């Protein structure tokens, strides 16, 4: 860059309206004239349209992010690391269950089985096993029948119900009663091994 260019730059950027050099003065004047070029300006309606379009595009690109990109922490609002690690672990457990593949099941089957197991476990932990409800006691079903058909019903539910009879019913009425509770106090009789109709 030559010295003239530097002096011109200083003349353009400083507020001195009359630089000493006549050529500099002429060039500064040309630069100032250039600012007066009448370019079209955007109307408020155009600004509003552009803004709306920008927002739509941003929303579109937000939604367009694939799950992989989101998991990698990309995108406008990356998920916390803990969530991403947990999701990654779950995905890896499903994807890398090679054992299940070797056993002839797909990873999705394995995942479904895990889910089924979890549901069964929760049901098993429920007091009364979900079978002590009024509906289950009154409605015979094949799943309930084997316990009634067992000749040793007292063994099936050996734990006595600690809840007093007069305790307020909290929606678990029939707990300890119904099939297992009723069988506990009864002596097995001939014909008890009949399946309920």
């Amino acid at each position, binding site marked *: *860059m*030559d010295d*003239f*260019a*530097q002096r*011109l*730059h200083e003349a*353009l*950027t400083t507020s001195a309206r009359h630089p000493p050099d006549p050529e500099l003065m*002429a*060039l500064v004047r*040309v*630069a*100032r*004239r*250039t*600012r*007066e*070029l*009448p*370019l*079209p*300006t*955007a109307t408020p309606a*155009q*600004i509003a*349209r*552009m*803004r709306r*379009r*920008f927002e739509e*595009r*941003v929303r579109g*690109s937000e939604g367009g992010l694939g799950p992989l990109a989101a998991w990698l922490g990309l995108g*406008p*609002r990356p998920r916390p690391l803990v969530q991403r690690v947990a999701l990654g672990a779950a995905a890896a457990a499903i994807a890398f269950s090679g054992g299940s593949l070797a056993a002839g099941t797909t990873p999705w089957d394995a995942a479904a089985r895990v889910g089924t197991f979890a549901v069964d476990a929760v049901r098993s932990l429920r007091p009364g096993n979900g079978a002590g409800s009024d509906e289950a006691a009154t409605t015979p079903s094949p799943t309930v029948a084997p316990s009634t058909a067992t000749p040793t019903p007292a063994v099936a539910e050996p734990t006595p119900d600690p809840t007093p009879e007069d305790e307020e019913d909290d929606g678990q009425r029939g707990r300890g009663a119904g099939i297992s509770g009723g069988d506990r106090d009864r002596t097995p009789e001939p014909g008890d091994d009949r399946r309920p109709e």
Partner: protein
Amino acid sequence: MAGFASGAFLRLAEAIGASQSAEWTPSPAVEALRNRDPIAWTHLFEREAPAIYRYVIARVGSPEEAEDLVSRTFEEAWKHAEAFEDRGLPPRAWLFGIARHLTSSHRRRLFRQPPVLRLDVVEQAARERDPELLDLARAIARLPRADAEVVVLRFVHGLSAHETAAALGTTVDAVKSRQARALRKLRHALEAAPAERAGLAAKEG
């Protein structure tokens, strides 16, 4: 083109960041933009969209296309927000750089880019206001592209030399040299313009 543009925008953001001091701490405003804070982006849009629109429409001529390019400019900036670094330059330089990239590749035919200044955009208003302005617009349109870009960004849109350098991806010294060369050419063109006009009028008469 998307891949190229993406890389170009990242380089542009880095160039803007690298144009000043080496050590920096992002200002809260820049941090808000980097974190894609909606309020910060709304303010940025309202402040800069009119200037970006003027730049784009001067190059493409069509208001509809200009609107689309402006919204795309902000979209690209938003997508690469985390790449923007605060080195003392306002985001305007970054936005102008993105707008320049998008406009240059818009309706590009082989090696021909849209002009830096379309005469038909300013012609009527310039003629009505001052014939010398029309001469000036014609002179800018005849400048070599690199010089014309410096003139338009520096003087028509009012960017500083640093901002212009960042938007063009060049050095501040190069901007100073180009502006000196371009202004000399414009001065000569303006001095010759009245005689040219008179000659044209005589021919037509």
